[in-house]
C-alpha cells in the first residue's frame, strides 16, 4: 500500500462574524485514525467541510503528499466526506444506490453484507438510524479515495451499530486514513491513533486523556481518577476499557440511606408547617416553581453518599463564591411549563403550511397560535440564556458536578438546525424556525428539554442556597473520611434567632455521650436544635449554621425534643418516649451510625422512674461507640453515678441570679449545673398570686 499524507493548515473560518477557526494544523496519513474532539460550535464540522472543500474559506491550505490540492480535485479522488445529516438520496432503492456508487466488485461485496442484504429493495427512509449510518460509511470506505472524513458517525445511533461502525473503521484503516469527529468521545478515543481537541479556534494535540479535563471538555475526574495505561505519541489511545471498568466499580458501591423521621423534622423546625417550615423558608429563595419543588425534594432527601454531598456542596460554594446569577425568572419558566403541557396542535411542519399558518394568524391571531408562539420564543430565549450561563460556569473553572451538568446540557440538543437557532442572536424567528422548534420541543426533543429544565431548577436551588448562606452567615461543612464518628463545630448558632450566641462543640467516639444540664431557659433545647440542624444540613450538602464544621457521615439522625402524646393511637407522652428510645435501640442494633438527641429524657413520668430509667438507658447508650448521643436532663442527681463511665462527658449551661432575675449567657461549658430557677420563674410570673386571687 502506498502511504499518503493529508495535511491541513492556515485555515481561517468565521461564522456570524465570530472567528471559529484560526490556528489549525491537522495531519493524517494512510492507515491512521485521527480523532477530533470539541464542544458544540467549536468548529469540528466546519473544519471537515473546509478540508473537503464544500465550505468557502478566507484562507485554507490542504496538501496531499506535500502538494497543495484544490477542492474540485480532492472530492471523489482523494477524500470522501460523511456529513452529519446523511447524504443518500431518499427516492432511490438501496440496491440501485450501491450500483450507482461503487465499482462492481465492491458493489457485490456490499450487497452481500448480511446487514445490508435484507434492505436492498428498500429506500433510505425505511432504514433505522443505525442501519443508515452503517450503509453510508460502508459506501464511503468502498470508494477509491485515500482519506475518509466522518462527521459524527456514532451520534444518535444505538450502541450495537456504534460497535459495527467501529468495526468498519478498523477493517478499512489499513488502506485509508480517517479523520473522525463526534461527541461520543469514548468511542473516538477508543479508535484514534491521534487525538486533537478544537478549543477556541485552535487544534490542540492531546497526548494524555487528562488534558481533556484541563480544557474542561470532560468533567474533572473522568480520567484523572482512573488508572490508565501510558501511551506515547502515535500509539492508539485505547484506554476506553479501563475507563469503563472504573465507572462500573463506582456504580457498584452500595449507599446506605440516611434515616430521618417526621418527629426529627418537627423538632428541628424544618417542615413543621408543610413547605412553609421555618428552616426551609430560610433557604427557599428560589426564583422558579420547579426550583421550589426541587429544593423541597432535596431538603427531604438527606444522604450519606460522600460523592453526592461533596459535589452538591462544591456546586453551592461555587455559586456562593462567584455570585452566579441565573437571571431566569418564575414567569419565564411558568410560560415554558404551560407551553409544554398545553394540548395545542403542533405548528405545521412543511414550509408552505407554516407560512400560511403564520400569515393567517398575523391577520387574526388565535389563542393557540399566541400560546405556541410565546412558548417557543420563551423557550428559545431561556435556552440561549442558559447555554451562555453554562459556558460562563465552565470558563470560571466550576467544580466537577457543575461542569458535568453543563456539559450534559450542551450535549442534550444534538439537532444541528435547532442548535443553529439557539446559537443565533436573531430574536425574530421565521415561520419555519418556529415550526422546527415546536416539533423539537414538544415531540422529538421533549425529554431532553425536560432534562434541561430540571438542570435549570437545580441551578436555581444552588443559587438560592448560596444566597441563604451569604444572608445568614452559614459555612460549608468538611467531610472527614474515618471509620469512627466525629463532629466538630465552631461558632455553632441557631439560624432562626435574631441575635444568636455561638458555641464551639466537639464530640467523637472516645467520648460519645454528652450529658447536658442547665436551668430552665438556659439554652439546652436551642443548642440541641442548632446541633441537629448542622448534622441534618451537612447531610444535604448544604451550608450549616456554624463558622466551621467537620463531620463524618452517619446513617441517621433521631431527635426527641418536642415529643407529645399520640391521642389517635392512645399513646401517652411517656409511652411515646419509651417507644422512641426503643426505636433508637433497634436502629443501633442494625449497626447503624446515628446521631441521637434527647431533650429531657423521660420527663413524662415520676422523678424516681425517670431517674432510674435515665441512669440505665444513658449508661447503656454510652457503650455504643459508633453513634453519638447528646442528652439533656434536669435529673443531675444521676451524674455522679455516670461519671465513672469514661465515654460520658458533662456539659452545662450557666445561669446567674441578678436582683431575683435569672440571667443566661447561653454558652456551653464543661461541668454539671445544679442551678434551679423553675420556681423563681413561676414566682416572677406571679402564677400563684393569680390562682390565689381566683380562689379567694
Amino acid at each position, binding site marked *: 500500500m502506498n502511504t499518503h499524507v493529508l495535511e491541513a493548515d492556515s485555515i481561517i473560518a468565521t461564522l456570524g462574524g465570530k472567528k471559529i477557526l484560526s490556528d489549525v494544523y491537522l495531519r493524517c496519513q494512510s492507515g491512521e485514525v485521527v480523532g477530533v474532539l470539541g464542544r458544540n460550535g467549536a468548529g469540528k464540522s466546519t473544519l471537515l467541510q473546509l478540508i473537503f472543500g*464544500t465550505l468557502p474559506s478566507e484562507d485554507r491550505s490542504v496538501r496531499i503528499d506535500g502538494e497543495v490540492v484544490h477542492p474540485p480535485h480532492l*472530492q*471523489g479522488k482523494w477524500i470522501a*466526506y460523511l456529513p452529519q445529516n446523511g447524504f443518500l438520496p431518499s427516492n432511490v432503492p438501496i440496491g440501485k444506490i450501491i450500483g450507482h456508487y461503487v465499482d462492481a466488485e465492491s458493489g457485490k461485496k456490499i450487497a452481500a453484507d448480511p446487514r445490508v442484504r435484507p434492505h436492498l429493495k428498500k429506500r433510505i427512509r425505511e432504514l433505522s438510524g443505525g442501519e443508515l449510518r452503517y450503509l453510508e460509511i460502508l459506501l464511503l470506505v468502498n470508494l477509491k479515495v485515500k482519506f475518509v472524513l466522518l462527521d459524527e458517525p456514532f451520534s444518535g445511533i444505538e450502541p450495537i451499530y456504534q460497535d459495527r461502525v467501529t468495526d468498519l473503521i478498523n477493517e478499512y484503516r489499513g488502506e485509508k486514513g480517517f479523520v473522525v469527529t463526534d461527541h461520543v468521545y469514548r468511542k473516538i478515543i477508543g479508535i484514534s491513533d491521534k487525538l486533537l481537541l478544537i478549543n477556541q479556534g485552535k487544534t490542540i494535540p492531546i497526548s494524555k486523556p487528562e488534558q481533556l479535563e484541563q480544557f474542561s471538555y470532560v468533567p474533572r475526574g473522568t480520567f484523572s481518577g482512573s488508572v490508565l495505561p501510558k501511551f506515547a505519541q502515535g500509539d492508539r489511545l485505547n484506554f476506553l476499557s479501563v475507563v469503563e471498568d472504573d465507572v462500573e466499580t463506582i456504580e457498584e458501591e452500595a449507599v446506605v440511606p440516611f434515616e430521618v423521621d417526621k418527629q426529627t423534622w418537627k423538632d428541628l423546625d424544618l417542615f413543621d408547617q408543610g413547605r412553609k417550615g421555618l428552616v426551609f423558608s430560610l433557604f427557599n429563595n428560589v426564583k422558579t416553581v420547579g426550583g421550589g419543588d426541587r429544593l423541597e425534594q432535596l431538603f427531604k432527601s438527606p444522604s450519606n453518599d460522600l460523592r453526592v454531598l461533596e459535589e452538591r456542596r462544591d456546586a453551592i460554594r461555587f455559586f456562593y463564591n462567584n455570585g452566579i446569577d441565573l437571571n431566569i425568572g418564575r414567569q419565564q419558566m411558568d410560560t415554558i411549563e404551560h407551553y409544554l403541557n398545553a394540548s395545542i396542535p403542533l405548528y405545521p411542519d412543511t414550509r408552505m403550511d407554516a407560512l400560511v399558518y403564520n400569515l393567517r394568524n398575523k391577520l387574526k391571531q388565535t389563542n393557540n397560535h399566541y400560546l405556541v408562539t410565546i412558548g417557543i420564543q420563551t423557550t428559545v430565549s431561556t435556552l440561549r440564556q442558559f447555554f451562555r450561563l453554562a459556558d460562563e460556569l465552565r470558563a470560571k473553572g466550576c467544580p466537577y458536578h457543575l461542569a458535568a451538568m453543563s456539559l450534559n446540557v450542551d450535549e442534550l440538543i444534538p439537532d444541528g438546525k435547532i442548535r443553529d437557532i439557539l446559537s443565533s442572536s436573531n430574536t425574530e424567528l421565521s415561520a419555519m424556525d418556529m415550526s422546527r422548534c415546536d416539533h423539537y420541543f414538544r415531540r422529538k426533543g421533549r425529554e431532553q428539554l425536560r432534562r434541561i429544565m430540571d438542570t435549570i431548577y437545580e441551578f436555581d436551588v444552588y443559587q438560592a442556597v448560596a444566597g441563604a448562606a451569604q444572608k445568614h452567615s452559614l459555612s460549608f461543612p468538611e467531610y472527614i473520611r474515618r471509620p469512627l464518628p466525629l463532629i466538630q463545630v465552631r461558632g455553632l448558632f441557631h439560624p432562626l434567632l435574631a441575635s444568636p450566641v455561638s458555641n464551639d462543640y466537639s464530640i467523637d467516639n472516645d467520648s460519645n455521650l454528652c450529658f447536658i444540664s442547665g436551668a430552665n431557659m438556659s439554652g439546652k433545647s436551642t443548642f440541641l436544635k442548632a446541633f441537629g440542624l448542622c448534622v441534618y444540613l451537612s447531610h444535604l450538602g448544604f451550608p450549616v449554621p456554624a463558622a466551621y464544621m467537620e463531620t463524618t457521615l452517619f446513617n441517621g439522625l433521631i431527635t426527641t425534643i418536642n415529643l407529645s402524646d399520640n391521642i389517635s393511637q392512645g399513646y401517652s407522652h411517656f409511652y411515646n418516649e419509651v417507644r422512641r428510645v426503643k426505636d433508637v435501640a433497634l436502629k443501633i442494633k442494625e449497626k447503624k451510625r446515628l446521631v441521637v438527641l434527647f431533650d429531657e429524657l423521660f420527663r413524662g413520668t415520676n422523678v424516681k422512674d425517670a431517674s432510674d430509667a435515665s441512669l440505665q438507658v444513658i449508661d447503656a447508650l454510652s457503650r455504643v461507640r459508633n453513634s453519638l448521643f447528646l442528652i439533656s436532663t434536669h435529673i443531675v442527681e444521676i451524674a455522679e453515678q455516670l461519671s465513672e463511665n469514661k465515654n460520658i462527658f458533662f456539659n452545662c449551661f450557666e445561669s446567674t441570679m441578678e436582683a431575683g432575675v435569672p440571667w443566661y449567657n447561653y454558652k456551653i461549658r464543661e461541668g454539671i449545673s445544679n442551678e434551679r430557677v423553675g420556681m423563681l420563674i413561676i414566682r416572677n410570673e406571679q402564677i400563684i398570686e393569680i390562682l390565689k386571687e381566683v380562689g379567694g
Partner: protein
Amino acid sequence: MNAQKLSLLFNYHFDIQSINIPFSFLAALVGYATGLNFLTSFIVSLVTGGYFLASYFYEKRRKHEYYFYYNKGFTRAGLIAYSWLLDGLLAFLIAIIKSIIR
C-alpha cells in the same frame, strides 16, 4: 464521463425534473389560457422559471444530498449545468418535433 457517473447525473436530473416538468406544464396551461402557444410556453419554462424553481427547492429541501454527488467528484455548478443542458436538449427536441408537426 463513465457510465456510473452518467447514471448519477441522470439521477440528479430526474430529481430536478420531478419539479420542473409539472411546474412547466402548469406554466404552459396558464400561457395557453392567456393566448400563448402551449408548447412554446412549456419549453421556455423548462429552461428558465421551471428549472430555476426546481433547483431552488432541491437546494432548500435536499441540500445534504449534494454530498452524494460531491463524493463522486461532481461539483454543484457542474451538476446544475449538466442538468440544464439536458433540459436545453429536451427543449430543442420538442421544438424540432413541433416544427415538423406544423
